[in-house]
């Protein structure tokens, strides 16, 4: 409890409150107002913002390990997609006999491939509680095993990035195969309902939207709690000087493993919320390019901050939606340019720079006030502290 209470610092509380308001207001505006009203939120917008919110959760998950722990994972999309597949499998089982081939148990693509039995890994996924468990367990387990090997043998820096990219690449190739039993190239789609409610209905969409906003709020709460706890301090210390931590008698590999696994589970939840809102999950989600894009959302918003990844994910994806509509030819130029510009000119990201500027301003004011008061009263033992933003500058 005290750990959770630590998550309610001023910024996090504000974000959580805003998210809760959004979670209530958008569905209300969507459902209650007639489409003619200027404040009516259109269906596509609900789905779009809902999707962005799951992206924001994914970016937050990445921020926890990259911004606070220094692990640049280029394969976080894999955990996102795995959570999505777990959800997708549940939704496929919900279709039941309403599929094109009308088989009560087998999903359409298995009937099409002339399979007779459900593969063992599809068992139990017709129960929501089991699917929910898998959404957390599968990405978590993969992250645990991967992290166990990687961190114990001290694979760090770019090596780790490349290996994690290879991980998601290998998964992508695997899921593209038809005989893996995950729908191959086409993935899983044609979902009918979730928890007994029609997935296309406005009320269900609104509920999914609210769930995404609340999940993000919960993510913010947990991440802030972790970052502000003693464990969080150790994480930052590991990021800044891993060898020194080891010399001091800590086990940085265990800390990284915990953070990495938790982050993967967060990504899994994001994926699970993403799938019913988008209506499809296919192996393309594993593409290394997707994972790298998540990194750029986080970098744009500001890594090592709680608000940053959320802002980054919303901004970049909003920009992407606008660009692909208005100037589809130039989206990749813009994205590429963004990568370069952010790393060169805005290493702290938008939120990081703003916070840094604000802190510097405050420090200067305090210093000025202290100087003014020290003139009046020369012997002051509590001189103002140095700017309290040492974190990122020493990150690497």
């Amino acid at each position, binding site marked *: 409890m005290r750990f959770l209470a630590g998550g309610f610092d001023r910024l996090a509380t504000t974000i959580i409150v805003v998210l809760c308001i959004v979670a209530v207001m958008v569905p209300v505006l969507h459902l209650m107002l007639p489409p003619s009203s200027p404040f009516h939120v259109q269906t596509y917008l609900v789905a779009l913002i809902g999707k962005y919110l799951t992206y924001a959760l994914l970016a937050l998950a990445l921020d926890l390990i990259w911004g606070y722990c220094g692990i*640049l994972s280029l394969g976080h999309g894999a955990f996102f997609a795995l959570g999505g597949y777990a959800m997708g499998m549940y939704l496929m089982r919900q279709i039941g006999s309403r599929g094109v081939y009308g088989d009560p148990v087998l999903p359409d693509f298995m009937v099409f491939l002339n399979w007779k039995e459900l593969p063992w890994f599809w068992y139990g996924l017709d129960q929501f509680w089991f699917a929910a468990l898998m959404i957390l367990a599968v990405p978590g387990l993969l992250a645990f095993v*991967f992290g166990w*090997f*990687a961190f*114990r*043998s*001290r*694979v760090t*820096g*770019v*090596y780790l*990035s*490349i*290996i994690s*990219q*290879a*991980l998601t*690449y*290998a998964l992508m*190739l*695997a899921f*593209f*195969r038809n005989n893996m039993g995950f729908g191959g190239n086409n993935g899983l789609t044609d979902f009918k309902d979730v928890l007994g409610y029609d997935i296309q209905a406005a009320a269900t969409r609104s509920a999914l939207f609210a769930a995404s906003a609340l999940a993000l709020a919960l993510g913010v709460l947990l991440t802030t709690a972790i970052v502000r706890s003693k464990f969080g301090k150790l994480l930052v210390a590991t990021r800044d000087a891993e060898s020194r931590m080891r010399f001091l008698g800590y086990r940085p590999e265990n800390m990284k493993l915990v953070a990495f696994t938790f982050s993967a589970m967060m990504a899994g939840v994001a994926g699970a919320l993403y799938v019913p809102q988008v209506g499809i999950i296919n192996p393309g989600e594993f593409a*290394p390019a997707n994972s*790298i894009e998540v*990194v*750029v959302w986080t*970098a744009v918003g500001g890594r090592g901050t709680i608000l940053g990844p959320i802002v980054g994910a919303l901004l970049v994806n909003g920009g992407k939606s606008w660009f692909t509509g208005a100037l589809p*030819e*130039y989206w*990749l*130029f813009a*994205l*590429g*340019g*963004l*990568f*370069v510009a*952010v*790393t*060169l000119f805005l*290493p702290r990201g938008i939120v990081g720079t703003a916070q840094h500027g604000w802190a510097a301003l405050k420090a200067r004011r305090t210093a000025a006030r202290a100087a003014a008061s020290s003139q009046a009263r020369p012997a002051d033992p509590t001189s103002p502290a140095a700017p309290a933003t040492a974190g990122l500058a020493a990150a*690497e």
Partner: protein
Amino acid sequence: MTFLRALATMLLMLVAVPPAQAADDAAIREAIAKFATARNFADTEAIVRELGASGDPRVEPALAALADGNLNFRKSDRQVFVTKESGQAATLFDPLTGETVGEAPKRDFTKIKVNNSLRRTIRAVVSGLTLAAPDSTVRLSAAINMFRAPDPANLEALDVAIARETEARVAAALEAARASSVLVSDQPDDRKLAAIALLGQRGDRETLSLLTAFSARAEGELKAAAEQAIDSINASLALWSAGQNVWYGLSLGSVLLLAAIGLAITFGVMGVINMAHGEMVMLGAYTTFLVQELIRVHQPALFDWSLAIALPLAFIVAGSVGLLIERGIIRFLYGRPLETLLATWGVSLILQQTVRTIFGPTNREVGNPSWMSGAVQLGELTVTWNRLWIVVFALAVFAVLLYAINRTSIGLRMRAVTQNRRMASAMGIRTPWVDAMTFALGSGIAGIAGVALSQIDNVSPNLGQGYIIDSFMVVVFGGVGNLWGTLVGAFTLGIVNKFLEPYAGAVLGKIVVLVIIILFIQKRPRGLFALKGRAVEA
């Protein structure tokens, strides 16, 4: 004048047709004429054999016509013609020379009848005739045809041909053809055993299917011998297929080596992961495309030289783009490898989209020069020239780089910076300059890799993407700071990949390799050939 020319022509003809052949002509015509008087199939067969015994290749058209049912004789004078029917009429050809003689109604003629056994005899006789052809490649292909379609009727002709044959490879093919014919004949068992022994030594797929068919109907000693021969052929085929896999692996490995070697240099010296490396390869491939287009339009004769012209150009193009990236972006990001990775990824997106905008998203066609097309057969192994040249080229590039790094002054500086940047700087080496040159060199190498890859892969804006993860794997596997690591890494991964493919399929094989590398990194986090010493940990 006209008279003189006619006279000369007649004289020439007299000289050109020696009297002996003229006599032969008469004999053959006489034999062919006998077809008209043959009373039954046995008679006809005797005539066919007589014609075959003449050993004159000119009887072939008549025999072929006989087998096809196109040999007829005129009812009135029993003269034999090759005919070609069209409606009620038939065009007549001379059976020996093939010249058109005239036209006549069909009903004036009687067809010389053949049956299946007679057709087989004719085929054997005809192939016996080609076995006597003066051109050795004709004889060889006749022998191979007989080997493929064994027939006891061929045996006599083969025996004659083997006795007469002087060229070793034709003789071997003839022996094999005889052995395969013996197996289907009713020859004594000891001859069949000898034939099996002979075939067992050949060890190709055709012999295998031949022997398998034979062992299915054979009994006792023969069956055992055939099965033994099949086993030995299978063993040698397995060896060949392993050899083929090694070759494919070497070929894939050389491609990986080309793609990865530039990456290894930049990563080794600067600790910078250049995600835009694949796009340098792509730029090289597009340079080749442009060069070939220009040559096609202006100087088609130079086409065989197009690759030689493209090589330096690709090096310059990719190298200068690399230099630009280094001077414009990377040098501001030293000491922040993760951010360099992101920035270069951004550069790669921009380069891809630029090329897509200029050249379009579809594949561009890059031709093979004549000396790179085709293949050579080594036993059971097919080696295509372009793959072979790429292996040679990759090794040549490797050798040149190895020399440059170990024996030149700039190489010495590069190694110094790799091992200890600050100490090198203290010794007066301009490390920023070395960085820039290294990056340009690595990118340039990627460019010439693109020239090579344009010969075997689709030239599209996504060309580089396909290689980037594999080349990273090579570098991670081989370790940095030592080119030998890249060489061993590339060929190991290539060969392992190709050996896994038959068992696991191409995709699963690739996944297995990735998993193996991920596990391997646990054991040796710095790769196979890691630099030793404290500098690495810095």
